[in-house]
């Protein structure tokens, strides 16, 4: 059976519960659904952040996410997966990204969910700019994200 995979990029907020329910409803062969929500924090590396702007490369973003999800579905025999990534302007507490993965067993669902997040962080064309009281700053890529992606 092929997995039902969904990728969505846009400014609109998402309802994690609703997205999870949609994946759960795909088939009763699903034994485990893992999910992850990334949110904007009120501080980053010690400095207070008032707002964040997320820029992306329209067109390539969707392709890159699609490839990452396909790869995860193949490696862990997923029964379903959803990725929603928001772009635009955010304030602390706002949701940014959602990943949902479903498999027969929990190990596959967890691994695929973490793989998608690690790959998305290092391979999908998104860029964050933080707005602070001292000005706007582009966020630097983290070596730890690169190392996380290299595990797989």
């Amino acid at each position, binding site marked *: 059976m092929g997995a039902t995979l969904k990728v969505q990029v846009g400014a609109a907020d998402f309802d994690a519960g609703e997205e999870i329910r949609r994946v759960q409803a795909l088939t009763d062969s699903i034994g485990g659904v893992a999910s992850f929500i*990334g949110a904007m924090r009120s501080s980053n590396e010690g400095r207070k952040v008032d707002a964040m702007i997320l820029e992306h*490369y329209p067109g390539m973003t969707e392709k890159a996410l699609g490839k990452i999800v396909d790869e995860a579905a193949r490696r862990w025999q997923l029964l379903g997966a959803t990725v929603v*990534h928001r772009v635009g302007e955010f304030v602390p507490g706002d949701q940014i990204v959602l990943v949902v993965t479903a498999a027969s067993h929990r190990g596959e669902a967890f691994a695929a969910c973490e793989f998608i997040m690690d790959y*998305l962080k290092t391979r*999908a064309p998104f860029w*964050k700019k933080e707005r602070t009281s001292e000005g706007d700053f*582009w966020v630097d*890529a983290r070596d730890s994200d690169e190392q996380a992606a290299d595990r797989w």
Partner: protein
Amino acid sequence: MIKVLFFAKLREALGQSELRWPLAAEARVEDIRQALVAKYPQWQEALCAPNVLMALNQEVVNAQALVRPGDELAFYPPVTGG
């Protein structure tokens, strides 16, 4: 002609998000970067920084990839989504 795109910090450093570049026959990504810098010497530092990434027709490539007329070429800094 090709379309050349710049994103995020690099876009701001160059003061430009998109341009059309004449290309009659195929050339390597690196050749196009050098031609851009020859025309806009003030771009040298930002565009040739070692961490600049490239995508050709929305697929990640390295500087040796072949670009053909009609292609879309993008330069951008390391990504920071998620």
